């Protein structure tokens, strides 16, 4: 019987398994997950989970019905440590070997840490459910919170910590948070969200040190300042989990390199989600958005099954979605679509930049992105305009 192994049990892994079954795959299906926990959804970790508004069962990605449909063998709490390209055999951290005819790489990314920093109690990254529980525990006591990094994770953690009554400071290396992602105008608007809600924003400085013996006491900055801190949350991006593929023949460069159909450099091995750097419009994209982890595995599964069935791969759909991400901070809902360039012009369409609004980015007069704050209906309309422009580009 044919065996397909899905490595990674986050959203991308679960979706790949779901798509394989939906596509008619009825062979053996094995899911390998590093975490012992049942698959869960990550967006609530920085918000509802930190705030104690939901528990692990509320964020489960599978239920009994789906697990029955998937009819999979679950190898949880163990990692794949190697992939042999000739036999497509996986080596697992617990010593087991697993032969597979097809492999889906969905190993995601892990939180980046500050290089060269001491490991101190009270210093956190937030990527997993365990991370969220540990951070929630620390936030259950009064204390000063310093968030390193003004991206979405940093912003959401700051918002949650503030809601829990903490004194919060965000340290951002750029002059404004999200400057490179969203340009100066939007970065200014989102920066004001923090200050409007009583969160201090320290920009244009780097973190040079963490001070403390056992637990963290302060964060040292490149301008000589020292910020007192009882809890530090480091939100400085993520690193794709590709090290285990060394020697596998699967080419990696800041992610697993795939073509437009999610195929890697090894036949019968596809990749999807945060770990995959896919070819797109002559360039390469590795997108860590939730929607990408939802949609890309469907393409990967189709592509893998076509390979296993000996079908012409060019008949399979390609992965070329319009990027979309949302964030909830301070009780407002942000939505962003497209890939606006830092020099693109932000143009208000409705509402007011001081409150809720919908706006478009333009490059040479053409729409290149949409940004909305608490304006879902208008966002939906504008995103359709952007999608049309995106599809003809």
């Amino acid at each position, binding site marked *: 019987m044919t065996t397909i192994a899905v490595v990674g049990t986050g959203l991308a892994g679960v979706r790949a398994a779901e798509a394989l079954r939906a596509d008619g795959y009825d062979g053996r299906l094995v899911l390998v997950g590093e975490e012992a926990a049942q698959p869960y959804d990550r967006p609530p970790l920085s918000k509802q989970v930190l705030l104690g508004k939901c528990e692990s069962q509320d964020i489960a990605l599978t239920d009994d019905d789906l697990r029955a449909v998937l009819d999979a063998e679950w190898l949880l709490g163990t990692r794949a440590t190697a992939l042999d390209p000739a036999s497509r055999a996986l080596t697992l951290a617990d010593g087991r070997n697993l032969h597979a005819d097809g492999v889906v790489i969905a190993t995601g990314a892990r939180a980046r840490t500050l290089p060269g920093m001491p490991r101190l109690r009270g210093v956190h990254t937030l990527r997993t459910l365990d991370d969220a529980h540990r951070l929630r525990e620390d936030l259950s006591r009064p204390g000063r919170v310093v968030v390193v990094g003004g991206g979405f994770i940093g912003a959401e953690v700051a918002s949650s910590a503030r809601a829990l009554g903490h004194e919060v400071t965000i340290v951002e290396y750029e002059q404004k948070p999200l400057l490179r992602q969203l340009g100066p105008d939007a970065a200014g608007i989102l920066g004001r969200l923090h200050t409007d809600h009583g969160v201090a924003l320290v920009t244009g400085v780097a973190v040079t040190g963490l001070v403390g013996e056992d637990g963290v006491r302060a964060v040292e900055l490149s301008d000589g300042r020292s910020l007192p801190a009882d809890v530090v949350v480091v939100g400085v991006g993520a690193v794709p989990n590709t090290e285990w593929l060394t020697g596998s023949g699967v080419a990696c460069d800041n992610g697993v390199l795939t073509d437009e159909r999610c195929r890697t450099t090894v036949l019968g091995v596809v990749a999807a989600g945060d770990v995959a750097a896919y070819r797109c419009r002559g360039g390469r994209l590795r997108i860590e958005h939730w929607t990408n982890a939802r949609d890309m595995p469907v393409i990967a599964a189709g592509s893998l099954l076509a390979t296993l069935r000996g079908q012409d791969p060019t008949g399979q759909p390609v992965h070329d979605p319009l990027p979309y991400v949302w964030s909830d901070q301070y009780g407002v809902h942000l939505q962003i679509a497209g890939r606006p360039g830092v020099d693109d012009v932000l143009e208000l369409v409705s509402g007011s930049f001081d409150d809720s609004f919908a706006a478009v980015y333009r490059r040479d007069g053409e729409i290149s992105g949409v940004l909305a704050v608490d304006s879902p*209906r208008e966002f939906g309309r504008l995103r359709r305009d952007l999608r049309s422009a995106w599809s003809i580009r």
Partner: protein
Amino acid sequence: MQLCPIADLTPGVVTRIVRPDVPVPLALVKVGERVFCIDDTCSHETASLSDGWLDGHEIECPLHESRFDLRTGRPDCPPARRPIRTHVVQVVDGMVCVDATSLAPTAETAR
């Protein structure tokens, strides 16, 4: 329970019903000659489906893009996993009506 005159419904436009005497927010959609009534709140997170995009018999949640079938209430993809409730519509004397008992909030819709 009377919701609104059928003459008020325009095909392709979602009408949101929020009234003190209606237990949960509702969305009414006319597709062709048929009228569909669904719970207006997405089964995933608090979002108003009447803000969403309508495409044939599907309505897309404006926040996270799950699409619900107006006929069955089923979502096509995550983040929504659970169906939204659909309610049987009758047009009586030009008024769109639903059975009041089917509107009663459940543990799920009260989230």
